[in-house]
Each structure stands twice: as structure tokens, then as C-alpha cells.
């Protein structure tokens, strides 16, 4: 039976053991007090006032006029007050550099300052952020992706930003469904949208052409091509099978093509131990790894950079990944970039679906920036600047969050990105068909899908046994009441 046991009571007990000195240390020990429970009440409705972010340089980006932006929330700059912004480093330096530039401009215009810091996009960086949150000293604004938006909301760390997002929702055709699923909970917005990160298959078109192949239309063709093109150390498919984030993506992207999914629309677990779609998909993965040997054997122990490095070192014919691989090639191996094309998933019995994850900017309650931080977030959604940032400056690194912005020449006329229309129009986030709430977050961060892949390809259990183990672990996660939020 669970009981509420206050920290104060605990400290009293502790003090009896360690004396008054402990109590003194506890008071100054880095604010380890857990943050209060989430405040579900919405932010007060904003009053009408001009947006502080309206003066961006015009570009030829396809952004609808900002008529609705006139209803942006009334935000009063606080002169001199600093806004602390942390962004994780991206493969493409412009991703964060342009945000910094934008925020510096806005800050200067409104008389406040921005402390902008790039932190490593690796466990060390995440640990630093987690520690800051736990200590009660997070930045005002931090970039989140996928389940993280809902995770920090559920921990009561982020602020409702519905008032900031609402004025932009009807513009530019509105936002894609994955954006809404990622950011909203019970109709409220808990982060501002930043970008849609697509996961195309990076494909060595030159190798396909040489062999007279086209990108496989279905999994049968996929296997046939794989067997024909695999000649170690060149392997066909760079599928990650270890306990890492990419494994979640690669597996779920395949499962959808068989008609399976992780969650139902109501957020309940969408997979059972005898789920035919999942079993068929697992059987295919096992066959490709063990029998066909078209997946590198070391992929059972790759880290998140494993498939990147495999493709970049010309040891893979194709792999699914955000365009970080391609952008690295542009700078370091332009000849290989020339040979690369992007495709969506091959079709399974249920069709083919694009895979995306959504990056957002979270506003943290314990930040000290006040309205200044909110002004910064509005500035990052201002359509003219945003369209220029995504479509013209980052040139394909991300898809825009707003539907009409995909009408830009980059996505319509550039052959390289032609398949992106299909990816985003059928795009799904991993938690599909429900928001990535607590249960999905726990499943993803505990790498339960990775465990299943290890059962399948390392322990060589049958698909049925591997799925049974997976479902048992998933049920345990979904049974926790706190994971429904």
C-alpha cells in the first residue's frame, strides 16, 4: 500500500540519526527537493497585443501572411532579465546556430539577454540536463524530442504553452498529426513545435543502379536484393538490433508495414503475445539476420552511431536514419552524398508508412526568464522566420511542422527530397496511434524493444518466445497508473 511520506518527515528521522548538522546540509544541498506535482490548470488566456517576433527578414519561403499572429499573447519583456536556453548539439551546426542568432536578435530588441548553451547530444549531455532538473535549476528553454515532451510534462516540470501556440495553429494549413500527438495532452500544448525529423532510408543508389535494381517495393524484394548485394564487409541493411534508441525506430517502422502498432488510439497497449503482424515482422527480422545474413552481425551491439558510421564508411547499402548521415556526407564525403537517395519504408501487407519524430522546445517552470522566455518561444514559431529556417537555411535537415510549408521548392522540385512528400503524408511517430505518454516513454527508455531484438538475434529465441517476453514486460509498464499520464 502506497503512502505519502513527506520529505520533511524523512529528514526528521534522518536528523535523529545524524544530528543537527545533517539538517543544515540538507538545507543547502543543491535543492534536491522533488518538484511539486504538475499544475494542470491552463495558463491564463492571453490578451491581444502585437507579437514581439514580427519583424523577421522577409524571405521567399512559403509562409502564409501572419494575420492570426496579431492575436499573439500579451507578453511584457522584463528588461535585463536573462533567459537561459540549452540546445543539444546537432550534426548540422546551423540547426542551433540559427536559433541562437534569432534569440539574440529578439533579446536585443526587447532589452533582455539570452544565455545560450549547446550541450552534448549524448548521455553526458542528457545527464547534465537531468541533474539540473533534479536540482531545481533547469534552463528556461530546452529542446525536447519524441516522448520527452510528455515525460517532462508528466513530471510537472514544463509549462502549458497553449496560449503561445494557439495563434499559429490555423496558419499554413495547420500542423501535422505527429506534431499534435507529440505536443498535446488533453487539448493543451506542452511545448512549442520546432521541427519534424524524418527517418528516410538512406540508400546507395549507385549500387542499386549497378545491379539493375530499384528501391525495393516490398520486403520480398528487399530480401532478394539484400542477398544479391551483401558481400562482407558490405552489408545490405544497417538495422540496429541493440538496446538503443534507433532500434525502437527501426523495429516499429517495420511493424507498421505488417499492420502492427505499439499503442491503440486510447493509449492502451496495442500488441498481444499472439499478434500476427508482430510475429511476422519478427520472423522477417530474424531471417534477415540469421539466415540471409544481410544485416551486419555486429549490429546487435551497435551504439546509436553504429548505422551512421556503417553507411558513412561504405559498408551498408541502406539504413534508416534522420538526415544527420547525409549532412555529414555533404561535408566529409560529397561523392558519397551524390550517390545517396532517400526512400520511405518498403511495403508490407499493410502498406508503407513514413517514420518521423517531432522536436519541440519545452518551457521549464523552474526557469527564471518569465515572459522573456515566452517571447523567445513565440519568435521561434513566427512563420516567416520559421519557413526560412526550415526550408532555406537547413535545406532538408527537418520537415516543417506546418503542412503548407511543404509546398516549398525544396520538397517539390528537388529530386532528393521527392519521397519526403510520402514520408510526411503517411508519417507516424513511434508511439502511434496515441501520444507518447508515460508508458511509451518508459518502454522506449528501458529499451524493451531492444531486449526483444536481443532475444531474437542473440539468444535466438523463436519470434513467439521473444514477443511473449516483450509483451510481458510491456504489460508491466502499461499497468502502472502513473504511466497513463
Amino acid at each position, binding site marked *: 500500500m*502506497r*503512502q*505519502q*511520506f513527506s*520529505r520533511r518527515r*524523512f529528514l526528521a528521522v*534522518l536528523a535523529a540519526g*545524524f544530528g543537527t*548538522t*545533517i539538517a543544515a*546540509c*540538507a538545507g543547502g*544541498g543543491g535543492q*534536491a527537493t*522533488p*518538484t*511539486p*506535482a504538475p499544475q494542470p490548470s491552463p495558463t491564463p488566456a492571453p490578451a491581444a497585443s502585437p507579437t514581439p517576433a514580427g519583424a523577421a527578414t522577409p524571405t521567399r519561403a512559403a509562409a502564409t501572411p501572419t494575420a492570426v499572429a496579431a492575436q499573439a499573447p500579451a507578453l511584457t519583456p522584463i528588461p535585463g532579465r536573462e533567459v537561459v536556453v540549452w540546445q543539444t548539439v546537432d550534426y548540422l551546426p546551423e540547426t542551433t546556430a540559427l536559433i541562437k542568432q534569432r534569440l539574440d536578435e529578439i533579446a536585443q530588441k526587447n532589452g533582455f539577454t539570452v544565455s545560450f548553451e549547446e550541450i552534448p547530444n549524448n*548521455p553526458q549531455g*542528457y*545527464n547534465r540536463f*537531468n541533474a539540473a*532538473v*533534479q536540482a531545481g535549476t*533547469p534552463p528556461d528553454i530546452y529542446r525536447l524530442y519524441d516522448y520527452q515532451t510528455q*515525460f*517532462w510534462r*508528466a*513530471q*510537472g*516540470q514544463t509549462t502549458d504553452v497553449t496560449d503561445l501556440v494557439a495563434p499559429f495553429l490555423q496558419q499554413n494549413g495547420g500542423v501535422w498529426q505527429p506534431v499534435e500527438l507529440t505536443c498535446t495532452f488533453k487539448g493543451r500544448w506542452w511545448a512549442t513545435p520546432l521541427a519534424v525529423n524524418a527517418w528516410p532510408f538512406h540508400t546507395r543508389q549507385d549500387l542499386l543502379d549497378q545491379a539493375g535494381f530499384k528501391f525495393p517495393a516490398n520486403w520480398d524484394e528487399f530480401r532478394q536484393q539484400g542477398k544479391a548485394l551483401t558481400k*562482407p*564487409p558490405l552489408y545490405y541493411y544497417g538495422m540496429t538490433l*541493440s*538496446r*538503443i534508441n534507433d532500434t525502437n525506430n527501426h523495429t516499429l517502422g517495420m511493424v507498421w508495414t505488417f499492420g502492427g502498432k505499439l499503442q491503440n488510439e486510447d493509449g492502451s497497449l496495442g500488441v498481444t503475445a499472439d499478434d500476427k503482424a508482430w510475429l511476422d515482422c519478427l520472423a522477417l527480422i530474424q531471417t534477415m539476420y540469421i539466415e540471409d545474413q544481410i544485416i*551486419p*552481425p*555486429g*549490429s*546487435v*551491439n551497435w*551504439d546509436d552511431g553504429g548505422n551512421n558510421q*556503417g553507411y558513412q*564508411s561504405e*559498408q551498408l547499402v541502406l539504413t534508416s536514419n534522420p538526415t544527420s548521415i547525409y549532412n555529414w556526407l555533404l561535408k566529409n564525403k560529397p561523392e558519397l552524398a551524390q550517390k545517396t537517395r532517400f526512400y520511405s519504408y518498403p511495403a508490407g501487407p499493410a502498406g508503407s508508412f513514413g517514420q518521423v519524430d517531432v522536436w519541440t522546445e519545452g518551457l521549464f517552470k523552474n526557469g527564471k526568464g518569465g515572459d522573456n522566455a515566452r517571447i523567445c518561444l513565440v519568435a521561434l514559431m513566427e512563420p516567416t522566420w520559421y519557413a526560412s529556417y526550415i526550408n532555406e537555411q537547413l535545406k532538408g535537415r527537418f520537415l516543417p511542422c506546418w503542412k503548407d510549408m511543404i509546398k516549398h521548392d525544396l520538397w517539390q522540385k528537388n529530386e532528393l527530397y521527392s519521397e519526403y512528400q510520402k514520408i510526411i503524408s503517411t508519417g507516424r511517430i513511434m508511439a502511434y496511434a496515441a501520444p507518447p505518454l508515460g508508458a511509451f*516513454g*518508459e518502454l522506449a*527508455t*528501458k*529499451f*524493451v524493444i531492444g531486449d526483444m531484438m*536481443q*532475444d531474437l538475434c*542473440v*539468444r535466438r529465441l523463436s519470434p513467439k518466445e521473444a514477443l511473449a517476453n516483450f509483451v*510481458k*514486460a510491456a504489460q*508491466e509498464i502499461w499497468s502502472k497508473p*502513473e504511466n497513463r499520464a
Partner: protein
Amino acid sequence: MVVLRQAERTVASPGVRTSRLGRDFWLGYALTLPAVLVVVGLVAYPLGYAFWLSLQDIKVGGQGQFIGFGNYARLLFDSQSRIYGLFWNSVKVTALYTGGALAGKFVIGMVSALILNAQIRARHFWRTLLFVPWAIPAVVSAFTWKWIYNDVNGVLNTFFTNLGLVERPILFLADPRIALWSVLVAAIWQGAPFWTMTFLAGLQAIPRELYEAAAIDGATPLQQYFRITLPLLTPVITVTVMLSAIWTSNAIQYVYILTNGGPANVTETFPLLAYHEGMTAYDLGIASAIPLVFFPVFAILIYFLTRRMLRQEG
């Protein structure tokens, strides 16, 4: 002598301390206060806070719910729970990893120390060279070993392939049958110099006359080793084993960088499991409970270690 006895009486009877020492009594407390604060602040408070976290169901940044010893119960007894299997697997892996590392370091450390203690040519050069691995940061050497083991372009596989010894690369870090041993080799490589150093210091403290006398009595080198060297080195060996056991079982650099606990958890030691649960999966309650389960074991080990070291000092 009189002064000493007086001092002994003073210490023996606390009731008269203040009257005899006057203000010096409080000065003593004042002078020890910084040390007390450091110990409390850096040891007792974090330990107490970790224990408090282990009694809650709490995520990073979230509000915890007190569940008593629920996390410990899940770890130790709840066979239906996912973490139960992972925990007991980590216990087994930690035992294998620590035991294997200690055995490897002992053998290499002892052999190296015996060689370096002998009158060999360029002895100082070899001593310096042997200690190089110890001087390299663990993270750097772990990444180096990762490259050495790489299945595609690693040193070992390139070497074996060029010699025609293997057709397909050996999966040093991805084959569950050899992954732990591959990690152990790297860990032993770095840890053995410390053992060599301590054993060498111990060997040099053994009087040569004992060996000369034994030789005159007809003792073989092997008999000299078992009858003189090993018994006289026992205190050094004991301290080294205890220290190394604590360091090795708690270190995560090699398993984290080389395999991150994989494949199929065959290299996931308990500190790495705690790291995964706490920092990757945000579950602070379980992550705090995992190392605290082992706290009594380490407390006992540290108690005996401290007692022995203090006795040696005495």
C-alpha cells in the same frame, strides 16, 4: 611521564574534560568541525538521500511516492518483474567480471613484479613501460580497445583476416560467448600495473637474507616463493585484492564504452544497470536501490580493509 598519565586520565574521564581543558575543549570541536562537515556533506548526506530515493517510486524531476522497501522487494524477490531478471543477471555478471579481473590482475601483477624485482637488464625502463596503462585515463583506453576489437576495421580482425586465420570477423564485443572476456582483457590490461606496483613494493621489503638462507638450506625457487615470498606478501595481497575488488566491481567505464552491457545483457554489471535505470530510464528509485543492496557487502569489505591498513600503520 607525569604529563602523559595526566593526559590519559583526562581522556579517560570525560566529565572533567571541560574543566581541565577550558576553552581548548571547544577549540578542539571547532577545529574538527570542517572535517565533520565534509564527511557529513559529501558522504552521509548523499548516502542518506540515495537511501531516501530508494524508498520511493520516483522519476527524475518528478514527485516521489513513498513505497517503503518496495523497490528492494522487486529487485530481490519479484520474479514476475522485469527488473528482477536484470538485477540477478547483473549480480552474476558482476561476480564473474570482478572475479575474472582479480584473478587476471593477480597473475599478471605477480609475474610482472617478480620479473621486475629480478636483476634484469634495463629494469627501470621496463618498470616505466609497464606502468603506462595505469597512467592512461580509463575512458581513453576503453575507446582504444573498442577500436582494436572493431569487427569491420579493428586491429585484431584486420590482423587475423590478413593472415588468413579467419574468414569472417570475430565479433569480440557482439558475440555473447566472448564479449565479457573481451571486456575483461581490456580491464585487466589497465588494472594490472597497480598490482605490479604494490607487489613490487612488497617484494622489495622482504629481506634478501631470507632467500640466501633458504638457498643454503637447499630450497628450490618454487619453495622459496611459497614459503617466503607468498606468506610475507600476504598483507599486501590482501589489501590489494580488497581495494581492487571495490574499484573493479564499481567501475563502469569499460563495460559502458565497450558493450554498454550487451549483447543480451551478458556484460551488464550492477553499477551499469543502476546507471541505465537512473540516467537513461529516469527511474531514480530503482537506480538508488540497486547499489544500496550491495552496500552491506562493501561496508564489511571496507571495514576489514581499514582495520588492516590501520594495523599496518600501527
